[in-house]
């Protein structure tokens, strides 16, 4: 085999290339089904994004429709609902960074301090389970729990209070997003911090203990600094999805009563595409805008995470 390689080096490149390709033909047949899938169902739609610069006519199809340049964007950028949805998305997801992001860190710190290994195992099971439920299920559970007739309001009423419609109130909607999101995902996200904690050198704790450090001091001065690189990387990666996070959740938790405060960019795209007379050119213009912004944010986040010494986006 090495002889083949050596001889191929002496010939000019194309022939060597052909030989190398032929030699690896089994590898290409392994890759082929996946490649076809990627081309049709991932790159195909990207081609469809060209509609952003076209006037889509159903009878002419994606490729036959006439080009109209930036015309769609003229309409998009003049739509007040579009800009509102952009700012709302940023606002909601900024809140996620402030309120949701620290929760898994806190959870992992508490779990780590827990001294009962059996109980800890049970707790971890409870905390990670909701991650595997869809937002359709979680929303259904929450609607049952928080609606006017739900358990929370029943308790409030039996204590003499008046019922509060948690999911149908415009002021409460955003906090409810954070609470339900923490409910569903904090336990799962904590895993990565628990893994980081388990990598901390035990000697540090013993030395601190000999020096008389209290438990809180040990958390603050050993555990936290040790997992800080992981926390920073996760934070930067999270900022990369500031324009995209949470469609599944908002779509299933929202209802007509909170329509005005729940229309994020993705919700806006959904509405103009599927709940209004569709203008695919217009919809695609918004979608392309969204995809490009998200890509830029993700690439920046990836760079940032790598600068911080993390592994970046790609595992």
């Amino acid at each position, binding site marked *: 085999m090495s002889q083949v390689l050596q001889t191929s080096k002496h010939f000019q490149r194309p022939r060597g290339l052909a030989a190398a390709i032929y030699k690896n033909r*089994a590898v*290409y047949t392994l890759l082929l089904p996946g490649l076809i899938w990627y081309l049709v169902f991932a790159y*195909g*739609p990207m*081609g469809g994004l060209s*509609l952003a610069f076209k006037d889509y006519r159903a009878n002419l199809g994606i490729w036959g429709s006439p080009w109209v340049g930036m015309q769609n964007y003229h309409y998009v950028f003049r739509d007040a609902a579009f800009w509102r949805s952009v700012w709302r998305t940023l606002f909601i997801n900024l809140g996620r960074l402030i309120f949701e992001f620290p929760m898994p860190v806190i959870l992992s710190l508490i779990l780590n301090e827990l001294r009962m290994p059996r109980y800890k195992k049970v707790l971890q099971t409870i905390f990670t389970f909701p991650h595997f439920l869809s937002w359709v299920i979680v929303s*259904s559970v929450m609607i049952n729990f928080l609606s006017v007739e739900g358990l929370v309001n029943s308790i409030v009423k039996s204590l003499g209070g008046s019922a509060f419609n948690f999911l149908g109130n415009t002021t409460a909607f955003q906090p409810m997003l954070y609470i339900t999101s923490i*409910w569903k995902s904090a336990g799962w996200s904590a895993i990565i911090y628990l893994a980081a904690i388990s990598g901390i050198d035990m000697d540090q704790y013993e030395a601190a203990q000999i020096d008389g450090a209290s438990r809180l001091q040990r958390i603050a001065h050993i555990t936290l600094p040790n997992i800080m690189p992981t926390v920073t990387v996760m934070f930067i990666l999270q900022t990369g999805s500031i324009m995209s996070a949470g469609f599944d959740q908002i779509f299933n938790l929202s209802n007509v009563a909170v329509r005005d405060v729940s229309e994020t960019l993705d919700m806006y795209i959904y509405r103009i595409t599927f709940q209004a007379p569709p203008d695919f050119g217009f919809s695609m213009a918004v979608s392309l805008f969204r995809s490009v912004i998200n890509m830029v944010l993700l690439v920046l986040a990836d760079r940032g995470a790598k600068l911080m010494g993390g592994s970046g986006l790609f595992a």
Partner: protein
Amino acid sequence: MTTERPRAATRRDRIEAIDIVLLVIITVWAFLIIIPVYNVIVISFTPQKTYLETPVLLYPKAITLQNYADLFEDGRIFAGYRSTLLILLCGLPLNLILTTSFAYGSSRSHYPGRRLIFLLVLFTMIFNGGIIPLYLIMRQLDLTNTIWSVVFAYGINTFYMIIMRNYFCSLPESLMESAKLDGAGEWRTLFSIVLPLSLPIMATITLFYAVDRWNEWYNAMIFIQRSGLQPLQLVLRAIVIESQVLDSYASADALLEARKFSMGLKTAAVVVTMVPVMCVFPFLQKHFVKGVMVGAIKA
């Protein structure tokens, strides 16, 4: 996650006030996660009459299966189960075949175009066309209103593929070399050497795909309009979320609808959608910690 690290240092500690505080916080937090789910299960087994009479229902005062009987009489849930199982049955093997062969193929070294192909794949992680062009493609392929649109729309999860690929890359190269010397081709090597060594990661990824398939709703909502074909999640959505009655918006129709679908029936629908995930979860949990996270963190 549950690594047994030597806890000698802490075991010598006295129990401090902070321990109690943390224990209380974490226990309350865990209860807040359990209670909404528990409440759904309790209501689903409670007769409508008892439910209406009891202001705060904390435990099942009377048990009935009537809600489940009503639910299955409605029929939609059966149709939903059928669609979801079909999607799972056709989709899961597709996911595994595409992912495994692609992950193994791209884990091989020294073939022309290796980097290019991998970059093409990574690009799909940060940029996508979105649902509309995908819908147009499905329509062009004549797949809309069939379960195949949902099956094909989710072929490879690039994140899972990379986890698998990293695992394959970590296997000792000498094993593959010796297989090749014995005359085994790539396919033979994959099936008789690589896969038997990769059972934990294969189990993990299979379970992840299975849960994803079970939870799928968005693609189906866009691609499938025929109500008899809609998967379980969408049936649940129709029964619970779309029939919400809001005080200020309750119309006569909505109230009628609400009466038809009692709380008991709605919660029963949630339970039958949730139970399969509950059953798979223990196996999932066994694997995801050592398999996926370790792979993802180390790479």
